[in-house]
């Protein structure tokens, strides 16, 4: 018996967890000594949905793995048949209850091995399987860590839904056994257990909390469209808006009328089910654009989405992208200037030291100054001039502006004689102004005549000719 055991334990591999070393024997075990891992994250959620029960049997798992639904198992089976054997060792741990070895890593391979044997797909295929045995004493947490290292941090061969479902189940477990601990603490604990980043755990928890909240965890939609829900639940911008719109009172303050609670979440779930639902990245970018726009007070695209049941692509089309860019650009600068990120002392130093930099700042200054004041300035100019509303004094001597205006009007008349060119007219009227002969009343008379008769008054023509002669 001892000899046999020695033969089996031909090698030992070391596993390091939390600063401790564990000797894990590499063994050959008969496949009948192995059992599927009932808690296998890979198919736990899917199998549960498939059999509609929490009490899943070993037979259920084998049936499921070898069903046409699991294409991955078919692919692996084809590879093994092609290679003639299994190339990767399984990781197992003794189950004290069943006295069998639970396959922690390699359940799909176990299904393949059993199928090969059952259907005799490879001639003389060995019934013994190469395994690495984790010590029985290794705690659940440490097994979790090893699994995480394999699938969540390392190989990442599980889908995001599979790995996050596993993380979430572990989260619920630790939550029950550590009810006094805060969510942040629990996530930190799990991150340590999995040897992963807290952000990764947080992401998984948020996604599955969303699925749970909307009864999607059990549904086919939840796993099939998981990437959408994961994105939605973890986008800070979207969640900020969702928090407001999901609450009817807050939504009303924002100017959006909603009938029920969770209107934003429901809208999204509905969208995900649409035939024309865009790709996750597109829907993410568009919804973020709609939310950013709403956050900046431009609520119409969001209203369209929530109140009018429009598609996200239609709602995003109503956003003025150029406008959003401008707002985002200046918000960023404003934030930087208001915060401590920019040292004004450094700006002053740079202005003194670098001419090119100074020129750029001057340009920006002029540019922004013009944006602020130029539209008003140009908008104020009416046909009567800026000071049209000033009290009219007929005896008051005309201004140079009135002289220029008359020169412009008369010089543009098609019937004006050659002597009445702009410069001459301007010179003449300025001279009249200087001699205090051109009054407001006279200006009005000339202007009205020109506008009515479309010609230069004869007395002006005569006076100009006289003026030119004296010049």
């Amino acid at each position, binding site marked *: 018996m001892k000899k046999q055991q020695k033969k089996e334990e031909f090698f030992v591999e070391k596993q390091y967890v939390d600063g401790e070393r564990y000797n894990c024997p590499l063994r050959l075990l008969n496949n009948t000594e192995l059992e599927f891992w009932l808690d296998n994250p890979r198919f736990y959620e899917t199998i549960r949905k498939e059999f509609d029960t929490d009490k899943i049997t070993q037979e259920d798992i084998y049936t499921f793995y070898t069903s046409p639904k699991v294409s991955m198992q078919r692919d692996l089976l084809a590879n093994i048949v092609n290679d003639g054997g299994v190339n990767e060792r399984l990781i197992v741990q003794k189950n004290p209850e069943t006295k069998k070895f639970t396959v922690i890593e390699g359940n799909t391979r176990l299904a393949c091995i059993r199928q090969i044997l059952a259907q005799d797909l490879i001639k003389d295929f060995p019934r013994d399987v190469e395994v690495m045995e984790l010590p029985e004493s290794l705690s659940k947490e440490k097994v979790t860590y090893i699994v995480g290292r394999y699938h969540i941090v390392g190989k990442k061969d599980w889908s995001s839904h599979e790995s996050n479902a596993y993380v979430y189940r572990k989260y619920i477990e630790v939550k029950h056994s550590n009810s006094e601990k805060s969510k942040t603490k629990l996530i930190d604990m799990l991150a340590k257990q999995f040897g992963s980043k807290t952000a990764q755990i947080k992401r998984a928890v948020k996604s599955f909390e969303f699925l749970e909240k909307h009864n999607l965890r059990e549904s086919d939609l939840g796993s099939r469209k998981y990437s959408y829900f994961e994105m939605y639940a973890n986008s800070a911008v979207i969640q900020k808006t969702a928090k407001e719109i999901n609450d009817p009172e807050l939504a009303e303050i924002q100017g959006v009328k909603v009938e029920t609670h969770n209107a934003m979440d429901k809208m999204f779930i509905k969208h995900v089910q649409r035939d024309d639902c865009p790709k996750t990245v597109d829907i993410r970018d568009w919804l973020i654009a709609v939310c950013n726009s709403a956050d900046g007070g431009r609520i119409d695209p969001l209203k369209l989405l929530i109140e009018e049941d429009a598609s996200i692509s239609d709602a995003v089309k109503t956003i003025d992208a150029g406008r959003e860019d401008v707002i985002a650009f200046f918000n960023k600068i404003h934030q930087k200037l208001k915060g401590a990120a920019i040292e004004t002392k450094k700006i002053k130093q740079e202005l003194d030291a670098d001419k090119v930099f100074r020129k750029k700042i001057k340009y920006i200054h002029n540019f922004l100054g013009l944006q602020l*004041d130029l539209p*008003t300035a*140009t908008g*104020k100019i009416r046909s009567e*001039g800026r000071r049209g509303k000033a009290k009219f004094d007929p005896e008051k001597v005309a201004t*140079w*502006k009135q002289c*220029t205006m008359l020169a412009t009007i008369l010089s543009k008349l098609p019937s004006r004689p050659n002597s009445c060119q702009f410069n001459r007219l301007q010179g003449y009227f*300025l001279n009249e102004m200087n001699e205090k002969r051109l009054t407001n009343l006279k200006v009005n008379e000339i202007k009205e005549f020109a506008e009515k008769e479309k010609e230069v008054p004869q007395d002006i023509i005569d006076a100009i000719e006289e003026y030119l002669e004296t010049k």
Partner: protein
Amino acid sequence: MIGEINSARVDKINSSLIDALIKMMLVDDIIHKNELEQIAEIYYLLFDKKASTQDLEARILKVSENDELETVGAVADSIANSIRSASSKEAATYALIEVMISDQKVHEKEKELIKKIAKLWGTTDILDSVLNDT
């Protein structure tokens, strides 16, 4: 045909005046909204049409980027050389004064600039008479 040529020549002279006003506005490094209003109004008087915001903006930014206008003397020479006829110089002096005083404050650089221009143009008497009146 001659009428069109004359009209184009007048527009060119008036354009030079607008640029001169912009230079005057920029000489103290501060763009005051009253200065902008003055320029927009003078533009209207000279061209008998409203200046479009975009055109005026592009024009101001273009002038502001001119590297050669770093000193008051250079700006004065530039303005003085851009307007040649006596009546235009006279009108331009009035226009420059309007822009200068529009922000209710005569900056030293503006005063220095207009004095230099008036001297170059021979319109110092106009400058003095208007400044004495205000």
